[in-house]
């Protein structure tokens, strides 16, 4: 309701005091709140809805852990490693009585995965480039689909109007026409002739437009092509990213988001110029890592930010509760502390069209906020209170 240093506290309001207050952290690449099988599903398509895979009955321990770490929202996805991940959603990490109250946004994005290893094996290079072209083709189909359907919508509008006019006219002419017809029937009877009904000729102008082919996947890609839904592409290798950027340059309204982006430094100029955010996974990976992560470097977030690329930090589903801790690793490897905080709050909200709802402390926003005893993103700082939707869910006396 109000934010500032000189406010009148409404009567009866509970005053929580702390050194630092900031917006709740958001994991833009998580899985908390999703059914495990939905997350690893490899058979998802562009229209698979994350909201259909939401599981309100996961062990509350996971939620509490995420909340205690200050993570109040997670963007989730069915088929996280699938070629098409479907429509993502943003979920609250707060315990919810029912499924609906967990969902903060039911269609945050569309998703695709390119060149991801499956069962420890990376797809070969031709298959990988082919997959990029296929995605570009799908966006193209989406755009065509939206053009055809927009034309249909216009035609339907014209048709509905013409029908209404014709009906009004008919209404007026009806009595006269009936009288004439009755007369004609009577005359025919008199002449002992058979009455021949005037054959109805359909007015070409009044022909109902034909409904174009319906396709749920194309319908999602149409929303992607028009920029209504951001498209999160999990992609790591420079060659594939170049191909994707080249192929999608013609879609002026497309809002690409790169997830992973291990070799994104090679295309940083383009990403910065096109304002394409990258969700970096700041996790330390050992030698046994998937092929696409072979060049993984904890310095990536800092380097991209230095090159002017918008950086988000995500857990990749490995545990949203650890994201604030992992974010400190990104800071220790060159990411500006303020940018790291933005990467977990405002940038996430901006990327997924939640700025009016979440990510900052402004009047009218949902009260997802943290009260800390020190600067955010320091290991020595304790999250004292966590509020979600205005409810105090974590406090110093709550058990964990």
């Amino acid at each position: 309701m109000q934010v500032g240093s000189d406010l009148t506290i409404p009567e009866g309001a509970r005053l929580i005091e702390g050194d630092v207050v900031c917006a709740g952290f958001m994991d833009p690449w998580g899985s908390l709140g999703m059914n495990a099988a939905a997350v690893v599903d490899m058979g998802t398509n562009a229209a698979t809805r994350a909201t259909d895979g939401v599981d309100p009955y996961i062990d509350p321990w996971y939620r509490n852990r995420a909340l205690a770490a200050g993570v109040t929202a997670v963007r989730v996805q069915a088929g996280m490693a699938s070629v098409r991940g479907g429509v993502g959603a943003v979920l609250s990490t707060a315990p919810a009585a029912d499924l609906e109250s967990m969902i903060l946004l039911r269609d945050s994005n569309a998703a695709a995965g390119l060149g991801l290893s499956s069962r420890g094996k990376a797809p070969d290079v031709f298959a990988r480039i082919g997959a990029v072209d296929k995605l570009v083709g799908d966006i193209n189909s989406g755009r065509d689909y939206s053009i055809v359907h927009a034309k249909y919508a216009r035609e339907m509008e014209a048709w509905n109007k013409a029908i209404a006019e014709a009906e009004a006219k008919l209404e007026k002419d009806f009595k006269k026409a009936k009288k004439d017809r009755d007369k004609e029937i009577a005359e025919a009877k008199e002449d002992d002739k058979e009455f021949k009904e005037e054959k109805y000729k359909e007015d070409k102008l009044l022909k109902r437009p034909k409904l174009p082919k319906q396709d749920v996947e194309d319908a999602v890609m149409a929303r992607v092509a028009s920029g209504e839904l951001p498209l999160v592409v999990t992609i790591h290798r420079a060659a594939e990213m170049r191909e994707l950027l080249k192929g999608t340059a013609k879609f002026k309204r497309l809002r690409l988001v790169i997830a992973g982006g291990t070799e994104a430094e090679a295309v940083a100029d383009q990403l910065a110029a096109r304002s394409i955010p990258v969700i970096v996974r700041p996790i330390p990976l050992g030698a046994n890592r998937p092929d696409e992560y072979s060049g993984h470097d904890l310095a990536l977030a800092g380097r991209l930010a230095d090159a002017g690329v918008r950086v988000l930090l995500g857990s990749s589903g490995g545990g949203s509760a650890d994201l604030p801790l992992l974010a400190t690793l990104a800071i220790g490897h060159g990411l500006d502390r303020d940018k790291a905080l933005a990467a977990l709050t405002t940038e996430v909200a901006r990327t997924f069209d939640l700025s009016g709802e979440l990510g900052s402390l402004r009047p009218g926003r949902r009260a997802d906020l943290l009260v800390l005893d020190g600067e955010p993103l320091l290991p020595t700082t304790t999250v004292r209170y966590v509020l979600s939707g205005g409810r105090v869910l974590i406090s110093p006396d709550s058990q964990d």
Partner: protein
Amino acid sequence: MHTNALLLASLAFVASAPTSASSSEGDALAIRAEKLHVGDGTVIENGIVVFEAGVITEVGKGAPVPKGVVLIEHAGHLSAGLIALREHAGAVGESNDSTRAVMDEADLSYAYRPNHSEVQGLLAEGITTFVLAPRPGSLVGGLCAVAKTGSEVISRRAYLSICTGANGLTSNRFPTSLQGSQAELERRFSWPRGVFATAVKGELPVMLDGGSSRTEVQHAIAFARRHGLKGILVGSTRLGEMAAKIRAAGLGVALSSYSPSTGRRVVEGAVALAEMQVPFGFALGSPNNHPANLRLTAAACIRGGLKSGEALKALTSTAARLAGVGDKVGSIQVGLAADMVLWSGEPTDPGSRVMAVYVDGDEVFRAEDDENGDDK
């Protein structure tokens, strides 16, 4: 590097000279840091450390800087180099032998390759000393070495590596069961010869991989007590639950690396061990774990309630003591090796950057874009 050192020698009176320097040639160097972490828990504000020929010669707030010694000003923290208690970096395939269950005389110092990229990678994370240990898979893996990162081995008999738990078993050679491994180890230690006799006498510590289940850890502790073994427990995430028993057995602990799935137990372990005053350090296990995991593990423990100072001790002085090299490394003390890390902030905050690393007084790492550096 050496040309820089010569250049610096001629600039000896310029206090704010570029900082890439070496003291191993005999030229003394001094560093003043905003906060100097000695390693025993004390922090000296604007502390100065002077070192010459790779060894620390003066430490203190107003430590006298001998005439002609370059004084490097560091706007940040300084601590001793970090120590990883169970490491496999650079040993590639030479740190285990899947065909033999008992390799009591295997000497891991022969597997050490100081110039291997995995070893060099440790420097970027401020790790200057590590215990090179066999990979799990044998009942007795051999003698662990303590190596200086990118430099020499400083102890060839830090520990005798033993697996009492399931980590020592493989399905295709004897023994294939826990009972079998217990019987074999019992036989070796009850009528001890060679390194086993030295271990039983308490002269050679053991690195005891107890396995992950509570039963296995209990067996490991009981085994150590039965044979009067000294040393550390490794390989388990449940050591915190056993803190009282570990303390009673007089053992130390090397905590496993943090990961989101096993993290909670490691964190609880660290807190419980600190409370019971059981000495502990951190294992790393690179290359399977990223070197950044060492400090991340400590930070996770701090987030879980471990005091920041305790965590730093576990990463430096306690680890050195547990590895039997506390008289050589692990603290910023006169007479110890000049193994130091210059941090941008608190050493235990993963958000602090490693600005420079010194091993034996040589600058062996500097952050790429450090404005004070001379790399550009």
